[in-house]
């Protein structure tokens, strides 16, 4: 019985009301998450938000204290389930004295129908490093080997935890290309990141996580829209406190002669500003970046009862 065979859009992996505590620290406070076939989903959040813990549950590193975890309709701790997904963890050093080809060959042997070793190496862009020892590689090259190890089993679902942390800009963009290529081949990918740019560049769907909860779940554009729309900058002598009382204004800041206003409806605000101050100049209107959206959303969550930070 496989529900995802009947409903192609049904989730292939799911967390339902999942809780995880480490001693006094709540890492996940009842999280619900669906992963759909063929999508690239980004779990976005600051360090300690609970992203890696969510991935730990989905990859079967540990069990949930409460709630359920299911991957392909089964427990991710079952070997039969594990043969269908690959994992790139955030902190995993491979044995230093082993050569790249040997590492991929070993991990590929865990799967019933693995990718060829050469194909894996070239997909990960490390074909020329096959005979090098792991210890002799740069940090970026080592990440690529870890990635090769994650995809060598030809998985249907790939979990990558902070894959580009510590990589330079070129290496990061190169890695994005590889991920996009794999997704085009039908691979479902779950990526955790604290780079907003990364989620924006890669994901169809972003799940924003902080304090072990889902704050928002949407397309990158939708996330931006949720954090209510736009930022207006202008030079004006208008009083900050009185603007803050206008309808639809979220925040106002003054920096010298410049005002910076965040609000929902930029058209109405611009009209109101021009009416209040005809001498107003240097008007700029821009959409909030994902970064702004992120700050806005996490800030509003902070006003709720705070929960401990998690590793």
């Amino acid at each position, binding site marked *: 019985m*496989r529900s995802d*065979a009947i409903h192609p859009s049904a989730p292939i992996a799911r967390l339902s009301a999942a809780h995880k505590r480490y001693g006094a620290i709540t890492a996940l406070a009842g999280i619900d998450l669906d992963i759909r*076939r063929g999508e690239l989903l980004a779990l976005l959040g600051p360090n300690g938000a609970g992203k890696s813990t969510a991935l730990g549950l989905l990859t079967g*590193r540990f069990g949930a204290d409460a709630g359920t975890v299911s991957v*392909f309709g089964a427990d991710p701790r079952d070997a*039969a389930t*594990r043969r269908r997904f690959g994992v790139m963890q955030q902190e995993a050093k491979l044995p230093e004295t082993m050569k790249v080809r040997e590492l991929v060959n070993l991990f590929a042997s*865990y799967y*019933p129908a693995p990718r060829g070793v050469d194909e894996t190496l070239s997909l990960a862009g490390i074909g020329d490093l096959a005979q090098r*020892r792991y210890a002799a590689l740069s940090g970026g090259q080592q990440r690529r080997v870890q990635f090769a190890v994650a995809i060598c089993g030809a998985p249907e679902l790939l979990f990558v935890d902070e894959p580009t942390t510590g990589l330079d800009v070129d290496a990061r963009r190169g890695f994005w290309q590889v991920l996009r290529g794999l997704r085009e081949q039908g691979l479902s990918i779950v990526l955790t990141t604290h780079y907003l740019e990364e989620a924006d560049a890669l994901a169809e769907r972003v799940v924003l996580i902080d304090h072990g909860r889902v704050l928002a779940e949407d397309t990158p554009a939708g996330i931006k829209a949720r954090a209510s729309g736009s930022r207006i900058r202008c030079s004006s002598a208008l009083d900050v406190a009185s603007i803050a009382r206008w309808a639809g204004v979220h925040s106002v800041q003054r920096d010298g002669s410049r005002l910076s206003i965040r609000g929902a409806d930029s058209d109405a605000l611009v009209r109101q500003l021009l009416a209040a101050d005809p001498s107003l100049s240097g008007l700029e209107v821009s959409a909030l970046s994902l970064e702004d959206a992120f700050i806005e959303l996490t800030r509003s969550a902070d006003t709720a009862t705070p929960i401990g930070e998690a590793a």
Partner: protein
Amino acid sequence: MNTAAALGRPASLPMSAAATLRLYALECGYEVLKMARMPAFVVPTLAFPVVFYLMFAVMIPGQWGSFQKAAYLFATYGVFGIIGPALFGFGVGLAMERESGLLELKRVSPMPIAAYFVAKIVMSLLSGLCVVLLLSAAAFGLGGVSMAFGDWLLLVGALLLGALPFCALGLFIGSLVKGQAAVAIVNLVYLPMSVLSGLWVPMFAFPAIVQKLAVIWPAWHLAQLALGINGQIEGVNVLLHVAVLLGFTVFFLSLAALRLRGR
């Protein structure tokens, strides 16, 4: 029709017996290769017992009471020599790979966890075998020791099987601490236990209390078996020592399993 089937394979393909066999063979082979590429670790582990033997049994031959030094130390350095790889291979190896995250990565991979431990046992036994072969060459070639071939085979077999309790102890130490801390703990256990079990000098050299306490050390029990086989002591209660070693193995395996599962 799901994607996996569309890709030409069923949702979850079982591992064939041949693929499983290959997996175990690769895991063991690479474990040995991984170690063989660390001469700074391998050479001392393999060479120490035979170097000690050459110094204390070959260069300074003689008798210790009723014991013939060359034969006594052949048996006890054999015990000393197989404990080293068991404690270091398992204890330190596991502790290092828990710290580096490799064990976690393997746990989320489809690798059967047994393959990880089988590889470590094979590695320990192979190192132990090398130590015993080196010692045998020194004992027979330079120490003037002579044994029936059957007895020698029995001794080698006993020492290799006798490595298992120490693999279990190493596993427990490796489950207790991560990284370099395991090296300190292993040395803290390994060297005092070896001395207090009569592996370096016979037990009669020690105060009565230390002699009485020898029964708590698994190394002493294994040494009694080894010394019995090469004729240095008589009337060895084989069943008792085997039972103690077995109990010891089960005890530390259980503790280690509790620690590793409990995380």
